[in-house]
């Protein structure tokens, strides 16, 4: 329990991850689902970056009078991750635009029923 309070930053990251996950699971709207996935992403990045942080450390850029640096490995991972998450968002958004064009709604249940109807009509 004390460790949870010491690691409060990671706890916040997990809470953000959980909020994103719950949004992803319980919302029927596709745009809300995508926002939830993005929140999950950021929670994960926050977790990684806070694992690499060291109290009093400097940013990992060489300087004359720097004492010691924080861990640069999570920064590199997260840097690539942020840009990839945007492209994933773009793909998901364009897929939902296509779904909307076809079924006229963004609600997953309605899309499911419409698709069933279309199959039955055939």
């Amino acid at each position: 329990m004390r460790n949870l309070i010491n690691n409060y930053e990671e706890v916040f990251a997990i809470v953000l991850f959980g909020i994103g996950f719950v949004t992803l699971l319980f919302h029927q709207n596709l745009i809300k689902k995508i926002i939830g996935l993005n929140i999950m992403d950021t929670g994960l990045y926050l977790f990684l970056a806070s694992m690499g942080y060291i109290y009093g450390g400097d940013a990992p850029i060489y300087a004359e009078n720097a004492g010691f640096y924080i861990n640069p490995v999570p920064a590199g991972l997260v840097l690539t991750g942020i840009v990839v998450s945007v492209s994933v968002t773009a793909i998901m958004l364009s897929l939902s635009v296509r779904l909307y064009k076809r079924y006229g709604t963004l609600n997953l249940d309605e899309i499911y029923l419409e698709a069933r109807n279309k199959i039955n009509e055939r």
Partner: protein
Amino acid sequence: MKIKTKIKEFVEQSREWTESFSDMSEKRDLPRERVRREEHMVDRLMEEKAGHMGLLKWRRLYLVLATVCAVTLIVVLLTTVAMLPVFGEHHEYMDTVAQYYIDHALEETGAMNIVAGMILDYRAFDTLGESFVLFTALNCVLILLRRDFQEEYRLHDYYDLTRDPILRRVGMVVIPCVVSFGVYVMLNGHLSPGGGFSGGAIFGAGLIFLSLAFGDDFAARLVSEKLFKGVAAVALGFYCLAKGYSFFTGANHLESGISLGTPGSIFSSGLILPLNVAVGFVVTLTMYGIYRMFRRGSFK
């Protein structure tokens, strides 16, 4: 009859449930048409008894399963966090690789920015794959949203902001700053925070702003489809050649044959500067191309 009333009750319940749980957002955002259509939909659902019963059962099962999943995941993750070492302290066993990077990055790669030296020299293949991921994402969006560019655009097809005087005036001042800051961040990736990814994103955002403020036609004249294809091909091809040579020379990344120069000057650290520019252009084109696809469905 009894079954019918029961089904009606079920449908009412499910409607209440979905309304309270998910959102009325679409209904509120959209005019009456939408609501009417949804009511029509519910009528049709009534006719579709079997399908709807199945959906109801599935929704209940789904609700239970999803709750269990979410709670389990969060509890497991919190337990893991409770066992992790304390936040913000130095740990030898966690930081051996990082310590190597910090100690040797300057002499081996010549980059002042350790992160840039890491992602563009030690792990350059990773970044190569990642720029291809970006390019593939752009292609997916292009496949999904591209429309036939011979068909005429109708007036309401896109929203024109170019007559807005505030946006134009602000754009005249801000766009050069944004674009030059993007280029600065891109070129100084090995000396200061930033690099190809950040600079490319800023540059792309500047191009998007340009296209919003001065019209898509102006932006299309500035960044034509030909230029787009050419720059993307050159940037990705250059990256492949620059990092693929090691396949032919025996898998040795670090010796590029280019002198590392004096650390701190702009022409230093070997291949990192041109690779930063290549990655930056790939990211720029991805951002701008995705925007164009969402906006008009073509580069024209």
